[in-house]
């Protein structure tokens, strides 16, 4: 009786299922922590994280098959959209979540951390990331961005024993806050000039009206793009990345490098492809310059580094440049190429940072390249899998990294543009340059020789005082079962999808159906 008085709005629970799963994971962690007095073992928190990640995959797979069969739909007053793109990117996000959860148990045990805060934060951050890739409304995008980022700020400052971790958090907070502010200012300008925050309405407005004086729209677009360039670490908005990656606890970096980048690129691609495509000819020159700067800046910047986490940070910038190439061309196959690259990137970057996390457990202060010397003799598994991930980053055939580069190049070259070939060659040349520091790490892993990195003289070699980096100890290195599982699965996937890339490519081709 009473139900007939209140009209209950139509709620599509499947559209909300990913958030429900992740949030309930967060809440379970917090509830157990606060209600149960007894100290829970570390693996328990990891288990909740992994289960939430698996839950995310399952709901997204379900949604994926639904939307492939019945078509995409939007929910919550058109603020969210459930389409293959969102499903595929959320699956990648869950890879980051699971890898992080598996890694954190061993890490916090060795670092003598108590409590599950990082697991709870990561699940919260992942909620924001999923919202970010599925929001069809710029307000939703902003919400997702903030939920994701604020949790990340805390995660990067989680290591209270190290000053650098706090420094990283503050840097990230300030720059991230500024970029969010720039973004939301752009959104408000766009709202003012088009009358909507919904991407579909914006696209209709921009496509349907001939705007004679569009200065404000151009400024708005530029601000929105800049906001995202910060998040996905593109040159010249990249300066925070190496510092934050170096300072933050390594598992947090694993999470940041994968989840934040997937979500950032997801939202960027969606905004440009489905909201602002009427202005693509104005956007393209910006993307062109930023792509070239990121490709070369990432590759060249990495050459000067001694710290492995900083090197990987620069290589992540280089990868971002590659992903941006797909957006630059903005054809169906080029976006599919970007999605393939994102998928591959998720696998090999999560893998690389997972190994770094294993080695950083119990003392994350320095990841100087000399500490990695002879890794393979201390632990074969870590040495070989790290080598594999690095080779994949360099784009060696029969690893997923080659498929990624092939996908992006293929997409880029389909596009009719006079610069496409030179852009492709610049991209591949930058991959060669970054190959230089991947190989340098590999040489050290196999402990053949001590080769000084370029640009660093021997005197300036820092005192590696209070480093408890696992590699430094002379004895063999033991790796936790969970961490081993995670790295092992990622390594197998890197090779498997390198030889049989059909699943990834199919997913990517389905993902772009919505655009």
């Amino acid at each position, binding site marked *: 009786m009473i139900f007939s008085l209140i009209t209950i709005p139509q709620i599509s629970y499947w559209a909300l299922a990913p958030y429900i799963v992740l949030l309930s994971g967060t809440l379970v962690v917090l509830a157990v922590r606060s209600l149960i007095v007894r100290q829970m073992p570390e693996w328990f928190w990891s288990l909740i994280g992994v289960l939430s990640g698996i839950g995310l995959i399952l709901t997204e797979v379900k949604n994926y098959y639904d939307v492939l069969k019945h078509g995409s739909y939007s929910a919550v007053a058109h603020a969210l959209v459930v389409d293959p793109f969102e499903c595929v990117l959320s699956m990648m996000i869950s890879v980051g979540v699971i890898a992080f959860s598996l890694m954190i148990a061993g890490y916090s045990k060795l670092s003598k951390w108590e409590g599950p805060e990082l697991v709870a934060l990561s699940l919260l951050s992942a909620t924001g990331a999923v919202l970010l890739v599925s929001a069809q409304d710029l307000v939703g995008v902003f919400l997702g961005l903030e939920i994701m980022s604020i949790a990340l700020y805390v995660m990067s400052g989680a290591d209270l024993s190290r000053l650098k971790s706090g420094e990283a958090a503050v840097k990230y907070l300030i720059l991230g806050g500024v970029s969010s502010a720039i973004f939301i200012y752009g959104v408000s300008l766009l709202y003012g000039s088009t009358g909507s925050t919904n991407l579909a309405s914006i696209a209709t407005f921009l496509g349907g009206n001939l705007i004679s004086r569009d200065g404000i729209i151009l400024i708005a677009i530029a601000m929105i793009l800049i906001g995202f360039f910060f998040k996905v670490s593109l040159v010249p908005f990249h300066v925070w990345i190496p510092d934050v990656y170096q300072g933050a606890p390594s598992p947090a970096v694993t999470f940041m490098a994968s989840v934040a980048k997937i979500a950032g690129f997801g939202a960027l691609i969606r905004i440009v492809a489905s909201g602002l495509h009427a202005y693509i000819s104005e956007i393209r020159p910006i993307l062109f310059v930023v792509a070239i700067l990121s490709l070369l800046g990432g590759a060249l910047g990495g050459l000067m580094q001694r710290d492995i986490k900083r090197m990987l940070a620069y290589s992540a910038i280089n990868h971002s440049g590659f992903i941006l190439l797909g957006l630059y061309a903005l054809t169906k196959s080029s976006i599919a190429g970007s999605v393939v690259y994102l998928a591959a990137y998720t696998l090999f970057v999560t893998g690389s940072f997972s190994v770094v996390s294993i080695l950083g457990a119990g003392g994350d202060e320095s990841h100087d390249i000399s500490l990695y010397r002879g890794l393979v003799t201390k632990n074969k598994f870590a040495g070989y899998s790290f080598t594999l991930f690095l080779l994949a980053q360099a784009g*060696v*055939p029969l690893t997923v990294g080659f498929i990624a580069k092939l996908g992006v190049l293929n997409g880029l070259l389909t596009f009719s543009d006079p610069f496409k070939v030179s852009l492709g060659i610049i991209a*591949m040349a930058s991959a060669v340059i970054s190959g230089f520091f991947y190989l340098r790490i590999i040489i050290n892993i196999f402990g053949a020789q001590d080769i000084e990195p370029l640009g660093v003289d021997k005197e300036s070699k820092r005192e590696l005082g209070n480093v408890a980096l696992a590699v430094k100890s002379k004895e063999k290195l033991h790796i936790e079962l969970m961490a081993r599982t995670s790295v092992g699965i990622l390594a197998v996937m890197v090779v498997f999808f390198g030889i049989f890339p059909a699943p990834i490519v199919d997913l990517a081709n389905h993902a772009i159906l919505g655009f």
Partner: protein
Amino acid sequence: MLPEKFKGVYKTLSVSGVLITDFFAVMILILFKSGTGPYQMFENYSWISAYGISLSLAIDGISLFLVILVAFVFSILLLSPETLKQPKSYAAWLFLLEGACLGSFLSVDLLEFFIFFEFTLVPAYFLVARFGLKDGPEAAMYFFLYTLLGSAFLLVGIITLALIHKDQTGVFSFSLIQLIKTRLNSTDQVLLLLAFNAAFFIKIPVFPFHSWSPVAYREAPVGGSIALASIMAKLGTYGLIRFDLALFPLGVKKLAWLFLTFGVVSILYGAVVACVQKDLKRLVAYSSISHLGFVVLGVFALTSESLSGGVFEMIAHGIITAGLFIGISQIALRRKTFNLDSLRGLQKPAPLLAGFFIVFVLAGLGLPGLGGFVGEFLVLIGTFSVHRWWAVVAVVVVVISATYFLWAYQRGFHLSPDDKNSKVSDLNLVERVILIPLVLAIIFLGIFPNFLLSRITPSVNLLLKRSYPTSISQLSLGHSNKLTTNFKQSNAGGKR
């Protein structure tokens, strides 16, 4: 063909792996129908259908003996006692490298070729970096990145070509058989040809792009040097013949003068620099550049003789270089040096070593009756008929190559040995057993070149007929048989 994992019984595994590979190689040789041009034993599976990549394997006269060469040289490498002394990963990398090389030579799909072509870098890198000499890691990195840079151009070129083909036909494919039908204007052909050649010239290496090779050959372990010089260099020359000539006839004709010049300069430069080398390994490295320049010359002269000669030279050079490097490693094993200055009069304490070494040296300088002569001779004849002056310059080098090879031999083996050199022990049984097949192969190539040429020439002629119907090649087709008979006679004369 490729056992990838080695556990406790890896020696048995590796021996059986070698035997299985050799068995297939011999089967291919027996089943190969000589005297026909087109591809044989075609196998096709869809691999990465979304990108139109297929796993197509086939063989023709051009690739047949390269496959045999790979199987032959790698068997010797893998069974040699030095390999068995190394940790098991050494053999594993060698096997991976062999697999990747075989894959490249058998591919009919461009991207499949590229995947194998580029993948060879990984095992080669680890061979040089982990098992090489003191500066191995740096040399390996230099080599890896330099070649990777070339590959970047090749990959962009391949995808561009496939997309042009897709625009014209609607089929997205990397298959060579499909792509040959692409209609390209001559500007596109020139650009694509340059992109392809960036990769191939670096891999060969041809003169201005050669700087990685002496360093890499020098620092590599013996197996690595042989793999790099005898086998992987051929990936580049093979790519020139298989892809450049077939896909870009207009571009090749337009730029032939340039590539011929590259070839001749390599021949000259390699030979001259080899003359001043004191390090034996570097000497062989530079002589390799010189010999591979002959192959480039033969390829871009575009005549039936020169092209067949080029293919023949690839095989002969592979075997001779393998022999030279093994000989050098045996000297180094005894004297711990590659430097000619500290070697003297080795002939006296080690006559067998000297005997084997002189065979490889003589074959290397192109003595008639041994393998090295036939290829160079055919290349020069073929080139002379169309590009006279290039051939004339190249002929001069034959003299220079005699100089540096004989000079090196003289300095190392002649005179009376000093203290250290007189205590050198001669080859033991195993070392002899390893060198004998190489010597036999060199003599076989020298005396029965027709065994190879009768299988190589039809494919070469088919290639020339299809892509260069109007060029001089048709004229030379008729001569081809006569030439080989002439050649047989002259060869017999040489033996007397």
